[in-house]
């Protein structure tokens, strides 16, 4: 067991679970989706991305790409939320909110791929 591997797997799985937690719930219902959870998902995804830096293998490149996709989608979701609340007041309409949630859904898919890769790599590892 190596600490480095634990940390790596921890952040990747956490990125997925947080993302999933935010995504879960009624699409257009603001009360089902917590803003702090989105924030945590972005931060953890960013950290996961940085952790994947510098791996020159093919698998490493795909890892990095999935994380970049997830971060991109989540940040766009956060931006939409932020801009909307700054311009249209505190009231959130269902249209905008469903966009935010669906963006996070895309990020979720990227995170799932990332975890699948992690599992595949672990399974292929020779003992």
């Amino acid at each position, binding site marked *: 067991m190596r600490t480095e591997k634990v940390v790596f797997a921890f952040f990747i799985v956490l990125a997925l679970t947080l993302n999933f937690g935010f995504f879960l719930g009624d699409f257009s219902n603001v009360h089902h989706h917590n803003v702090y959870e989105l*924030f945590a998902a972005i931060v953890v995804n960013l950290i996961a991305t940085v952790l994947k*830096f510098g791996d*020159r293998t093919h698998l490493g490149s795909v890892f990095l790409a999935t994380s970049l996709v997830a971060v991109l989608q989540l940040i766009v979701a956060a931006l939409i939320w932020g801009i909307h609340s700054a311009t249209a007041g505190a009231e959130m309409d269902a249209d905008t909110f469903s966009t935010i949630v669906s963006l996070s859904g895309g990020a979720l898919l990227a995170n799932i791929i990332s975890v699948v890769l992690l599992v595949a790599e672990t399974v292929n590892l020779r003992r």
Partner: protein
Amino acid sequence: MSNLIYLLLRRLRAPLITLILVYAVSMLGYVLIPGEDNNRDLYYMTFFEAFYFVSFMGTTIGFGEIPYEFTQPQRYWTLICLYATVITWLYGIGSLLSVFQDPAFRQQTKLNSFRRAVSRIRQPFYLICGYGETGRKLVEELAHDGVLSVVLDPEEGPINDLEVNDLPISPLWLRADASDAQLLEYAGINHPRCSGIISLANDDRVNLTIAIVAQLLNKNVRLIARADTKQAESNILSFGANEVINPFETFASRLALAINSPSLHLIYEWTTGPRDRRVDEVYLPKKGRWIICGFGNFGRTAYQYLDDIGQELCVIEPDRHRRDVPAGAIIGRPTEASTLKKAGIDEAVGIIAGTGNDPDNLSVLMTARELNPNIFRVAHQNEEKNKPIFEAAELDVVMQRGNLISDKIFALTQTPLLGDFLRIVQRFKSERANLLASRMIAVMGDEFPELWEFEVNAKETPALFDRLNAKHQVLVEDLLRLPDNREKRIEAFMLFLKRGEGNVILPENNRLVHIGDRFLMCGTKKAHHNVQIMTRNAQYLEYGLTGDLKPDSLVWRKIMAKLAR
């Protein structure tokens, strides 16, 4: 390039993660801590406001407390975050700078820019491995001749001088080990414009490795290598090197030539010697007893060559543990008069100081002159920096390894046929060599000898090529007719002709010229120019061959055609 970015990202992992965490915690704090708006109502900062505030606080820009004046708890939190973020930034920037300073990173940057520069070369260049005295001389000569060189050398030292150089064509260089196949590839061994590899390392094994790697990577590339021992020489030759140059052997054979066949010596000097001065007089060491001091690489080779031409030899070797000294050798310090006397300095005609130590060599020769004022003195100069002392000592011959090899290699790069030519000429008998030398003097007059070569093809000699293609016969002597007056001859002659695998030394005047022939010519600069006119300009060639002067312009040609009818 990609290597660099990955290296950079990898090194910056820890600072980046720290930065993300510190920002996240700070932002979260601002969002959670209750504040007040202007009406003293409860107000929570949004994530955007928090990010905005932390961003300008962390970078110490500090626009003030926004969107509303902070409450006391918010200020406490700001105090904590302020230090945390500033320290994190310093840590990040510090790591970034240390990555840039890192030797591995800098080597990688240099390698990348070197690779890019090499791949962008659009002119013929030589790849030179080893930048010692020889390398420096050679790069200089090539640069003055307008040829680009790419230099590899693993050691700190002279190669760093290339950073600031005043050469007309600045060479590309990298401090790296040339026996690394990958590096040879980066340096352009497979580059379509690579004219050849010149391997000049001090160590024979390195030269051998380069020869093997070069042969495996690119069979067609021309390879010129240096070798200090006989074994290494034949070994490198077996790996497909075109020319192997052994500095000691080159020098010793010249010395033997000077004693045995002065005209051959002159031919060698003219063809492979320095380009800035012409040697016309042969120093003439007399035949007789020679003393060789030091039986290292240099002394041993000198011994072999002088022994071959039947000189009486006496070796003085200071190291009493050396095994392979010839019979009759005297063990002792050659710098002492008594040792020299024992070796028979009184009746010796020449002395060769060939120890590995420059002051010793000079001291030997000074003592020798005191004992025998007429003695012919030959010195081996080991280090370039001692050149002024050797010049001041007014010796008869000084062997400067660097100059000797670089002159020869330069000549070989300019006229590759020279190698084959000299290999045949060195077996010439005295009379034939005399004849050749006098022919060379006849064509070059008082000028510097100019050697050049040309191939009969569409690109180099278009007029001649077209004419031969039209099934006309052209003789060797026709090429040497003066373009202004066909009865007179250009002051040049063919030294050598290579037709396919066949060699013709000094081709006769009535020999037919074929397409694909390669000629090695000797003459003056003007003669070179005239031969170029003859082979490239169809009008002049026509005139030279038939005596007809065809008009240049279309109109005049038509008028002439009408008149003829």
